């Protein structure tokens, strides 16, 4: 059995799975249920000045019969009184001393507000603080949330205020509503943040009701941009994470990975790209806390299979596998191959390649079943057919190097090698 305990800035938890700051971590009752279910830690729902929420609050994107492929919300920070939250945090800490308790904060934009709230939260005995520089709606209009995260200099200033006061570890949570997360990340690290976390939600319009013509979520005939999250945002989160893991300054601090994590596999991917632990929101909101069981078991089995004994054995292992395009090996070539014994003759590979790729698949008409074969000389090795094929391992990409040696684009040009022959 592998060891999946996690140590993030000295904050220990029995596994690397934390619940992100959001409704699942909004109250004692939720958090107790989460800990009973087995979650390693929580980032308590963001505390700050008093707010008022509207109704409705959520909307979603379904895809091909799957509900909530993407999730969207227009909620604000915690709308419960600060002292109730603080009191409940103390109570939970007492009941579950082995779990990570980090408290998310978003104070008004002045030094005193930040210092006051930090003092109050530290009094609870919480293990760490997370600065919410990411919420993309409602709070930004008041100069908070993403408004801070989108401006590296404001972020630097706020982190400096926080670091003057905080005695426990501070995680700065970044917004993805920027061209690059690195400038704000860098500013936060330079201002002394102990760690970074990302991503918060992405501004979005999830859809429009085609009867009323009002976009979702509906609030008295109107809507507003919301924050997008869930499985749909995972690839974007992984990209932002990689840029943080590859930057000389931001890679100095640990990162908590967030965005579309639903399974142990998603979590492993974040960790391979440099996250020390992960946070989950939407998947828990869709399925409840029980999903953590398989997350722990799946992670454990995978680590055993691969021979990893601790999380540190694999964290960051894929970071240097993402390079600049110019560094890719142009002599690498692979060609699709269809296993005729597995083929179900659906024709999906054919029509994808024929209509939109390189006309590299041959169709031999049959009634009712056509036969599809690859034209090796035409195939550019794009993977499209393999991706659309509904049968696992029916289409595989087989390596056919153009030449044994590594040649990148720069060398290629220097050598005057031929350009596209297709």
């Amino acid at each position, binding site marked *: 059995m592998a060891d999946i305990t996690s140590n993030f800035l000295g904050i220990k938890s029995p596994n690397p799975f934390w619940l992100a700051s959001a409704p699942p971590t909004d109250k004692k009752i939720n958090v107790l249920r989460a800990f009973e279910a087995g979650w390693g830690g929580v980032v308590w729902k963001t505390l700050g000045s008093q707010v008022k929420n509207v109704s409705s609050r959520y909307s979603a994107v379904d895809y091909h019969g799957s509900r909530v492929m993407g999730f969207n919300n227009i909620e604000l920070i915690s709308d419960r009184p600060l002292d109730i939250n603080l009191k409940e945090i103390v109570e939970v800490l007492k009941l579950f001393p082995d779990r990570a308790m980090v408290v998310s904060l978003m104070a008004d934009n002045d030094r005193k507000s930040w210092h006051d709230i930090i003092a109050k939260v530290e009094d609870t005995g919480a293990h760490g603080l997370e600065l919410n520089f990411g919420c993309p709606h409602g709070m930004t209009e008041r100069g908070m949330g993403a408004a801070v995260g989108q401006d590296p200099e404001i972020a630097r200033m706020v982190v400096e205020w926080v670091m003057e006061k905080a005695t426990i570890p501070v995680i700065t949570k970044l917004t993805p509503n920027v061209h690059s997360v690195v400038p704000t990340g860098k500013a936060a690290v330079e201002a002394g943040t102990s760690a970074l976390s990302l991503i918060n939600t992405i501004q979005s319009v999830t859809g429009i009701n085609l009867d009323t013509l009002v976009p979702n979520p509906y609030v008295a005939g109107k809507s507003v941009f919301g924050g997008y999250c869930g499985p749909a945002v995972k690839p974007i989160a992984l990209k932002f994470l990689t840029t943080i893991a590859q930057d000389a300054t931001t890679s100095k601090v640990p990162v908590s990975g967030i965005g579309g994590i639903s399974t142990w596999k998603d979590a492993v991917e974040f960790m391979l790209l440099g996250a020390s632990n992960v946070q989950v929101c939407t998947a828990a909101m869709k399925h409840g806390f029980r999903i953590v069981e398989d997350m722990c078991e799946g992670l454990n089995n995978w680590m055993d299979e691969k021979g990893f004994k601790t999380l540190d054995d694999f964290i960051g292992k894929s970071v240097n596998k993402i390079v600049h395009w110019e560094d890719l090996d142009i002599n690498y070539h692979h060609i699709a191959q269809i296993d005729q014994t597995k083929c179900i*003759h659906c024709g999906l590979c054919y029509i994808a390649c024929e209509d939109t790729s390189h006309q590299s698949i041959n169709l031999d008409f049959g009634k*009712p079943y056509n036969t599809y074969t690859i034209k090796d000389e035409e195939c550019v090795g794009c993977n499209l057919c393999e991706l659309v094929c509904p049968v696992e391992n029916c289409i595989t990409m087989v390596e056919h190097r153009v030449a044994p040696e590594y040649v990148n684009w720069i060398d290629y040009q220097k050598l005057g090698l031929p350009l596209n022959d297709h």
Partner: protein
Amino acid sequence: MPIENNRLTSDQYQENFSDIHPPFETKEAALTEANRCLFCYDAPCMKSCPTSINVPKFIKQITTDNVKGSAHTIFESNILGAGCSRVCPVEKLCEGACVYNLMDETPIHIAKLQRYSTEMALEKKWPLFIRKPSNGKKVAIVGAGPAGLSCAHVLSREGIDVTVYEKESKGGGLMTYGIAAYKVTPAFCEEEVNYILSIGGIEIKYNHELGKNITLEELQKNYDAVYLGFGVGVARQLNIPGEELEGVVDAISFIYDVRTKGYENVPVGDKVAVIGMGMTAIDAATQARRLGAKEVTLVYRRTQEEMPCTEAELDIAMLDECKIIWLAAPKEVIGGGGKVVKLVCSVMKLGEPDASGRRSPVETDETLTLDVDMVIKAAGQIPFTELVNKNSIENANGKIKINNTATNIKGVFAGGDCVNGGREVVDAVQAGKDGAFEILKYFEEL
């Protein structure tokens, strides 16, 4: 052992004749199934539908909340798409070709999805087709069955004025009078016929029989073209001693009664033998059971290998606890007091394959005898040989000969059961379309 009606309570009849393949109960159920569809290219299901319905497209349209478009896609190829979704032997057509079969997965329930879209269209009376303005051309169609109605709809869409002559008092042909009652109800058939007629330009003259109230010459004189879609007649004679006894009935008439008289008014025996193993035989056997016959035995000359019905149909008969005797050919019906008491059969064995590759049965010396009080003949139907001969229509044993739907008589076309001798509804629908297209071409060339 009497032949009696009124064997069951009305609740029992209701239950026995309720829908054998119920529809999706909810939109969610239909969507879940529709989303399973892979949206194949040049789809095997589409190629296996005699009317070439674009199956992947109509299923995709269900998933995009475009049920109207979905129904249009179906009806465009098959105006009896609603009826077909209930009666087609899909296990040997579209669903039998679904690629999921090759993954050992349940095929997409294509017929059930087709029923979902088309019944919504019928129920909401969506006007999915607009008839072109009348172009003055007139066509007479004989028979308001699937072939005739399908032909009529295509022609009317093109602005042709169609008059259908139908000998019965209702449309639908064997849909209304032949197919098992647990597949389609009379009310459904009527709704379907009305939906087809709602395009306008089609008039049905009921209780008009070719050869009785009207002649082919009249039709040729009064119309620019004639389409014959009058199907086939009663079940084939057995030509064995005792066939005239009381209790020997023809499956087509028996089912006609089931479909028209009310279940409680149709008499069946205690012990019934059904001769044949086609669709009609299965339907006669199962419906005899469902009317309350205690014991029903299907008697077939060949083996399961050669049977004309599909496995799915055989399963229906077996679930209805019908017995099956393979390799037995009726030899004599024995009577007592003028009524059937026994059926004597020759035991058969399979000989050499014939021209069609089927091994033909050969009589042995052995016989077997069944105690029965009713014998239902369902060994194929007889074409209207006399009618076609009288009108000098070229035919093969009564089956009209056609060349691309044209008969030997100029301006007279034919299709459906009267040409093929009896296949499926969906084949008749395609034959009707083919006929209409030929007629349109004929008009262009005139």
